């Protein structure tokens, strides 16, 4: 099995029964693959089925058609190999921080004794910077700290893939920024394969290696795969100073504002198995005359 197809989504569809006896197709014939160690990000408007794609990857939902192959094996149901970070953090409120993470650890390694479980959990509590808050309950934590626990819980079971469903959308901008830094650091350090859903363009540009653009649903399709041209050692602070920054950002924004609506109509012979890969870059040619004239 080649490592370029560590995750391979093969022709999945999701349909719901409609009121008139037919079926509403959220998306169909969706093909998508990602190599090991990469950070992939689906971006699209609400209702394009991106959360459904993630839930299918997690095994929490089943596709109406098609299969998902992870590490050479078709998935069936949920697995400890695929950890999920939920949008609403989903911590068990009757357990402490330590209890929540230890619950995950002892679910993966059932034969470990208590001391070993706690020791392992502690490593991940330290990793996300929650040292000292082990015995607090979720209700005593801020939104950002709760999501840190969620991240630690997902990392603690050393999954093959980490799946994130808009993990930072409920947080304020400052907390979101710090948590993005943490996620970037941890995923780079561990070479964690990660798949994320978002509708925040800046978040996708900072975190993702590949950005998957989805058109509006129902009948959503994967329109384009955008390769991130920004350097791997990018930092959130001076990201916008990079020459490729606006090329990338404008490309994604253009898609979300106009092309996501018109794509299906204007591209009749779109092949869902050969989705075009683009790499928006700054070129010396005056692609944006209005901008250059404005600067003079």
């Amino acid at each position, binding site marked *: 099995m080649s490592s370029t197809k560590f995750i391979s989504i093969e022709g999945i569809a999701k349909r719901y029964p409609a009121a008139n006896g037919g079926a509403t197709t959220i998306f169909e014939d969706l093909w998508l693959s990602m190599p090991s160690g990469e950070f992939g990000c689906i971006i699209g408007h609400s209702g394009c089925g991106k959360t459904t794609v993630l839930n299918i990857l997690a095994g929490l939902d089943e596709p109406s058609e098609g299969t998902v192959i992870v590490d050479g094996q078709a998935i069936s149901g*949920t697995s400890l190999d695929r950890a999920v970070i939920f949008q609403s953090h989903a911590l068990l409120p009757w357990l402490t921080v330590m209890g929540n993470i230890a619950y995950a650890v002892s*679910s993966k390694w059932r034969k470990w004794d208590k001391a070993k479980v706690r020791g392992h959990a502690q490593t991940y509590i330290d990793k996300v910077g929650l040292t000292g808050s082990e015995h607090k309950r979720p*209700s005593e934590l801020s939104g950002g700290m709760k999501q840190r626990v969620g991240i630690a819980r997902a990392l603690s079971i050393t999954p093959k893939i980490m799946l994130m469903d808009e993990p930072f959308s409920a947080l304020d901008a400052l907390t979101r920024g710090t948590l993005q830094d943490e996620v970037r650091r941890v995923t780079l350090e561990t070479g964690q394969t990660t798949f994320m859903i978002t509708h925040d363009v800046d978040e996708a540009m900072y975190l993702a290696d590949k950005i998957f653009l989805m058109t509006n649903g129902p009948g959503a399709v994967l329109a384009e795969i955008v390769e991130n041209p920004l350097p791997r050692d990018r930092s959130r602070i001076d990201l916008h100073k990079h020459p490729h920054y606006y090329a990338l950002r404008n490309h994604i924004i253009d898609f979300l504002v106009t092309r996501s609506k018109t794509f299906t109509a204007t591209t009749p012979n779109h092949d869902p198995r050969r989705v075009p890969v683009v790499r928006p870059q700054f070129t010396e040619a005056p692609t944006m005359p209005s901008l250059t004239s404005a600067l003079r």
Partner: protein
Amino acid sequence: MIQSLRFRAAVVSIAIFLAFIGVWHLATRSTASVGTMSPEYAKLMGLTATSGKSAMPGPLDVGAKLWEHLRRPFYDNGPNDKGLGIQLGYSIGRVGLGYFIAVLVAIPLGFLIGMSPLMNKALDPFIQVLKPISPLAWMPLALYTIKDSSLSAIFVIFICSVWPMLLNTAFGVAAVRKEWINVARTLEVGTFRRAFTVILPAAAPTILTGMRISIGIAWLVIVAAEMLVGGTGIGYFVWNEWNNLSITNVIIAILMIGVVGMLLDQTLARFTRMVTFPE
């Protein structure tokens, strides 16, 4: 100076209590002799006729009798003369046993109904019909089949306390947040472990609320049930003292039923607080 709310409430409570006792005392005290009558006739008529004393005992009579009962709660002078403690003990024992059996049945069954939409739909008509039946309506059937009055009372307690627990357990289990279930699913936690580590703690506050409602109903029903089956228990005591025309003892029994009921309710309330988690 503004005193704390608690203190002011206590003052008002005591004032209401004293006012009640005062009115009670005034309403039942002896007035002057009612009229002249032959001494023998007066003897026959008793204090009610001779000095205008009400047949209803005053607070001092009840207080004196209560003190007597509290000093010797566990005496046993044969079938119709037992201490108040023994009678309450019988009632609490019956309630405890019937209620315990109800817990054993209602909570697992509630889990089944809450976790399985099929069983929920299949059992719903039975529950809807059985739930509104007055527990005492079961009594003849229980006496006929069980052929033991004491066990029949326990059965009646079982049947009246099972419904609130069953419905609350089923509701609590079915209403567990989907994301918590999903956490357990992504961690490959099996059904059995999931029921104990996620669903039980998540539904515990709702289940305990159902148990609290049940213990209240069970304590209401035991008095009526014991009046029917007789022999022992606080309900039988009330009825027996009514037949003895001892209103004083009836009032004391009513007071005791209230106090024990409150204690039972508070115990369950404490358990409920123990399992409630802040979100």
